[in-house]
């Protein structure tokens, strides 16, 4: 680049905090403020169950979005990664299964749980990236199934079929973090951190390189990048939001057992990410919110409509099918298309304001 230094240099304004803050669209402010003041009006159930669960599932789906949307690798093992972290918190920390749980303090147990989840994800990634594309989804599905069976059969560490109950968050600063409001803010905080971390990462060299790998791995290699290392690193990094989500999920239900990490939940994470749309991080949370609403109220709606309550699996399946069939980019994709069609001039078909 020394070659061209003498030529043109673009003048760049010095970006300050104020300018940065001003650039944030109004919608973000609105959503942020609503989320922050939500506990003033909403019921405990809405806070703990609807939003708490949305944020948790959103984080796990976010890790899939990072891999799938930016990295082009659709992994079905993200629920397993979350499960590893959840299990580790139960095993290393406190639970009602005192024979197995080590009872280590939270500041050891939680970081260690995350580290183990990252290691697990790295090994998963290392296995999965040895092959490409569709193989990934199959291999990670198989890994998820293996982890489920292993947890169910192993009693010495994972306590088999029953798993661990009585897994509660530490009473830090005198707060019961499982209280609805406290838990709401706890999950909101980590969801926001994960979200912004992923948004930030998407424009950092690593994130850009990951998207480059998605678009054209061969060219990336030709540009001097180690494609495999980037892919494995993406698995490792994605384990962090998934792991945090897994720990929070364990605290929310106060237990973790093989059913938490079964094949059903693994596919649910994919459903969430796809429904929301894998193109942008926010899709994970949109998908999670819809999924949670559906899971919670579909039965009521069906019964109210005079339909049999059992068929709601069919509804979920059909909804998912319609979305992937007609809008592979999920609801965000639909939204984007609608926005473009609004901007497009109905007469010329060109974009308004464009010359």
């Amino acid at each position: 680049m020394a070659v061209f230094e003498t030529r043109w240099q673009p003048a760049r304004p010095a970006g300050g905090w104020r300018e940065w803050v001003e650039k944030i669209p109004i919608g973000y402010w609105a959503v942020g403020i609503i989320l922050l003041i939500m506990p003033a009006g909403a019921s405990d159930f809405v806070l703990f169950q609807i939003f708490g669960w949305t944020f948790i599932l959103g984080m796990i789906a976010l890790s899939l979005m990072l891999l799938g949307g930016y990295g082009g690798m659709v992994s079905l093992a993200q629920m397993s990664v979350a499960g590893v972290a959840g299990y580790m918190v139960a095993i290393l920390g406190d639970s009602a299964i005192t024979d197995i749980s080590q009872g280590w303090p939270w500041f050891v147990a939680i970081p260690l749980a995350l580290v183990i989840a990252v290691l697990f994800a790295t090994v998963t990634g290392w296995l999965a990236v040895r092959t490409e594309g569709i193989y990934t989804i199959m291999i990670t599905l198989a890994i998820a199934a293996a982890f489920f069976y292993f947890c169910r059969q192993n009693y010495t560490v994972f306590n088999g079929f029953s798993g661990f109950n009585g897994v509660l968050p530490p009473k830090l600063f005198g707060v019961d973090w499982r209280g609805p409001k406290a838990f709401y803010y706890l999950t909101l905080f980590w969801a926001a951190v994960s979200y912004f971390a992923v948004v930030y990462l998407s424009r950092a060299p690593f994130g850009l390189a990951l998207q480059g790998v998605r678009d054209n791995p061969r060219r990336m290699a030709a540009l001097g990048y180690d494609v495999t290392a980037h892919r494995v690193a993406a698995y490792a990094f994605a384990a962090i939001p998934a792991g945090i989500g897994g720990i929070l999920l364990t605290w929310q239900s106060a237990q973790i057992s093989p059913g938490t990490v079964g094949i059903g939940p693994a596919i649910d994470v994919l459903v969430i990410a796809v429904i929301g749309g894998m193109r942008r991080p926010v899709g994970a949370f949109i998908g999670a919110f819809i999924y949670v609403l559906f899971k919670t109220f579909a039965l009521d709606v069906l019964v109210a409509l005079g339909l049999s309550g059992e068929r709601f699996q069919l509804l979920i399946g059909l909804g998912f099918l319609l979305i992937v069939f007609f809008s592979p980019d999920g609801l965000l994709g639909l939204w984007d298309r609608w926005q473009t069609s609004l901007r497009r001039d109905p007469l010329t078909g060109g974009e308004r304001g464009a010359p």
Partner: protein
Amino acid sequence: MSDVASVSTRLAATGTANALELRGVSKMFGALAALSDVAITVHPGERRAVLGSNGAGKTTLFNCITGDFPPTSGSIRFFGEDITAFPPHERIRRGLRRTYQISLLFTGLSVLDNVYLACRGVSRGRFSFIRPRRSDALMASAENLVEIVHLHDVRDSTVSELSYGQQRQLEIAMALAGAPRFILFDEPAAGLSPTERRELVDILTGLPSHMGYIIIEHDMDVALRVAESVTMMHNGRIFKEGKPAEIEDDPEVQALYLGVNDG
């Protein structure tokens, strides 16, 4: 700029070696010889056009030089260093670049990001989790390259929104990233409009004089305006070498190539 420094050290070490020196390079695909016993020598700063009909082995020649498909036999030296067995990214780090005939861009990313990735690929910090700032040196050089190939107006557009000609220009910008010492252009003018071709010629002739390249081009106008020397290939062999004017006037060449292919 450590890269530049290391390049200059290497330059000093290799002295006045040829930029590119191919000896007895052959490439077999099964029983089919795509290249047979090719020998080419290019001096530093030299600009060479490689001409030949389809299937003459031009792109195969590029693939051998860049390491995308290593040659079956023969040796390749780059500024005196034997790079025959090097993987592609090692060659890139030594300052060799190429553009591709088919578009191999990152279609989901913006123009600037594409060039930035190309710049980043030959520097350190490929795994950095820290966002580059606008004032970042690499970002600055990426913007600079975007400017050079006249894509400044669309630098934030996604590549999939660009016109074909703009995508070709972007290819060139990416090949110029880092500290290139030698570039292989694979039919950069294919599919471009007359205006875009003129722009392309401007870009190529405007490159710093010490930066040599080989260009594969069907458009004789373009090829002969941007090249100082010409190599004709036919059926995987070198057929003729010389100055543009000599080649243009050569009856054999006219019979074989110019006559059937009017560019």
